[in-house]
């Protein structure tokens, strides 16, 4: 019962007080699990609160979320902590960072047999990380402005330069990096020419997803780089079909979001239990309509029918994480070079 008490405390007391008193007040009962995650996962409209409730009911323990801005910030926080982390679980690193995260030495193998639960196209096998959801990058367009969206990346690149798209900067944002890798995967060594062409259709390159998507929903730009699942939000939460994803023939670049237990978490039996829970239907059912991504293990998940209306890429593209880690710097310079011509 003690864990519940600490929860009540934080919901009724001004947050600042709890923050100031945090260490002294939060119950240090046996059975506590600390999960680092990104901010929107743990917002009150995100999956966090529901996940917490479901897991605490199952484990009779206290689950605490601590959030960093995004997946990159999560890994960097671990680096700043230099192995002396408070986290048992880190939830929210994606496939682009997987190799670097694994190489950091902060994570322990999960030792679970979960790979047969995944419904991710192409499957997913990794000793260290467990996948909890995935999605595809896609160009979202405003049907009020665009009747026939581009049907391929090639069409996007060669389309009317007056009809603009807002994209993100690969140096500062995950979707930006995703788009760059997408183009790289499709065009290989010819990618710079593609960047150049894309630059002509680009209204602006924003530091993060929010700015670009804000410009898009404000009607400033008719296309934006986002996810195939974005329309699901608008259809379910806002009951509008106005924003749709364009299906590209070449396939869509994939992003898989991962959870892993830290070397500290390896000593906490709750960490293994949580990773198992992450791939279970109770966790997976929460994801689609809170995180607006696709469940990694959809069996037993009662998916909102709206998700069936989304673009399902015929081909999913994903580069090997180690290749990305090795080449990212060079590729970003290549992108910079080409887009500033």
């Amino acid at each position: 019962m003690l864990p519940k008490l600490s929860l009540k405390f934080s919901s009724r007391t001004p947050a600042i007080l709890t923050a100031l008193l945090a260490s002294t007040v939060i119950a240090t009962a046996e059975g506590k699990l600390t999960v680092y995650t990104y901010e929107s996962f743990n917002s009150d409209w995100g999956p966090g609160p529901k996940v917490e409730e479901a897991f605490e009911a199952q484990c009779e323990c206290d689950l605490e979320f601590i959030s960093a801005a995004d997946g990159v910030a999560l890994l960097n926080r671990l680096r700043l902590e230099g192995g002396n982390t408070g986290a048992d679980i880190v939830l929210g690193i994606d496939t682009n960072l997987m190799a670097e995260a694994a190489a950091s030495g902060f994570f322990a193998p999960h030792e679970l047999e979960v790979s047969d639960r995944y419904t991710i196209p192409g499957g997913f096998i990794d000793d260290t990380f467990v996948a909890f959801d995935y999605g595809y990058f896609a160009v979202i367009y405003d049907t009020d402005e665009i009747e026939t969206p581009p049907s391929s990346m090639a069409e996007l690149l060669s389309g009317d330069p007056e009809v603009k798209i807002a994209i993100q900067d690969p140096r500062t944002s995950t979707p930006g990096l995703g788009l760059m890798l997408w183009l790289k995967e499709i065009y290989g060594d010819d990618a710079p020419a593609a960047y150049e062409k894309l630059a002509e259709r680009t209204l602006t390159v924003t530091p993060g997803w929010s700015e670009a998507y804000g410009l898009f929903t404000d009607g400033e730009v008719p296309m934006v780089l986002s996810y195939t699942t974005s329309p699901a939000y608008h259809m379910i939460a806002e009951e509008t079909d106005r924003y749709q994803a364009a299906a590209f023939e070449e396939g869509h670049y994939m992003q898989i979001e991962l959870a892993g237990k830290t070397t500290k978490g390896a000593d906490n039996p709750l960490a293994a239990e949580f990773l198992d829970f992450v791939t279970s239907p109770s966790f997976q059912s929460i994801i689609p309509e809170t995180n607006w991504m696709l469940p990694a293990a959809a069996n037993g998940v009662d998916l909102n029918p709206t998700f069936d209306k989304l673009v399902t890429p015929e081909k999913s593209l994903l580069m090997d994480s180690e290749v990305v880690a090795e080449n990212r710097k060079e590729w970003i310079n290549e992108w910079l070079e080409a887009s500033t011509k």
Partner: protein
Amino acid sequence: MSGNASLGLGKIKFGNATDVALPWPALVVLISGLALVLGAFIPVVHFAAASDDVGSSLVEAIADPVIWRALRFTLWQASLSTILSVVFAVPVALFMHDRGNFAGKRLILQLFSIPLALPQIVAVLAIVGLYGRNGWITGLLQGLGLPNFTLFGLTGILLAHVFFNMPLVVRVMMLALERQPAEYAKIAAMNAMPWQSRARFLHWPMARAACAQAAILVFMLCVTSFTVVLTLGGGPRATTLEVAIYHALTFDFNLARATALIALQVTVTASIAILISRFGRETDTGSTLFAPDSVGVGGGAKIDAFAYAILFMPVMFVALPFANIVAKGVTPETLNVLTKPATVDALITSVSLASCSAVLTTLAAFALGHGICRLAAQRRFVGDATIVEKFLLNSTAAVLVLPPIVLAAGWFILFRSFTNPFQFGAVVIVAINTLMALPFAARLMVPSMLTEARRTDRLSRQLGITGISKLRIVDLPLLRKPLLAAFSFAAALSLGDVSVIALYGSQDLITLPSLILAKMGSYRSDEAHILAFILCVLTAAIMIVGDRQRRAA
């Protein structure tokens, strides 16, 4: 130097000049500021050294054409932004001062205090809503048959920077102008001086120093501009050094490179700031028979059609983005969002953190000002400010080009070696926000403090009014206005901050701006608009309360 026996502690030897006694409050501020910066950078450099060498990173960065391009663009856009902000601000400030008290003047000044408090993303979207493809202004221009202009590119960057900074320059200049002796206006009237001469010979000399000071701040703010430059810049051609620093800090996690880039940024901007400060010689008000009181004795505010006509454009320029925010933020949902526990929690957190930093900032600025005044008293308020005085005022501005996130990271590394760093989240946020707001507060307060000191220093010393009594009887009443201005400015700046919280945020520590960003980051832009509106109202409320004047009964 006798000075105030209890206050003259620190001695600084400067060149072959005589010993300069720096009072302890200023010394404390200086040392804590330095400790706060070094306390962050030493761990960062130490940490970086484990994998990489800062020195060789610096060499590498200097040799990197990408960095040079970024640096060149950084300086180019920052210089243009500063020049434009000043060019637009100077006539507005001089004119507003010249027209005396007209109805709505205070409202304009209050309005001019809010832009800097807005999270950049909110302001950027509000500006796009005006000048963008579907913007109000764009529509208006099209309706008038004027050619379209593209917002994205240098235009957008400059537009946003002028929106953020022109009002700041006006505010700082107006405070300086208020020190102008009341007789000046009378002299001008008696001699039938035309407005050009009034502006040039009476007002400008009074505001010149403040204007240069403000220009330094603006320049530094523009150098470190990030969201504005990337979002409105249109592409990676428009890249600041700050983006490169951020990149090194996040995806690359190369602290050595980040430190090297920061060193580069600090060196370049500091040299330019020194250059700007050369234009900013203080003008001696000389002595006048009596303390000027720009509020005027018994002079009520008048309706001034001419002033309204002239000020219409600049005021609209600042006000319209807010109108846009209001238009988006006032919906049937507003009350619902406001009363949500998460909103209330974030409001309480934000207000608590902001009040703490504002109090600390005001105290620190007062202490610095006190030190500067004591030093100025040692040269009997004649001649140019000494190097130490200039250093006291300008050193605070140097902090502005240090990315707060690096300071936060440094303290994070330091804390985690012996405790849970999240415990100190609130403390670090308050400390860093104080550091970041100090240059603004100092610039708002120091000119007035100097003027008051020049008038009353000898009198107070002679009568033995010291310590708490001096604070209560002399300083607080006489400096009420600049103190409140500094307080509300600091509060507003801290309210809008999102940089430090990014590293220390947990479920227990969510501020209003971080909530806005989180909402924007997860499709909930409607709620984000409402929260942005609430943030604006809150900031406006602070400004209005801070500006309220108590007329002596």
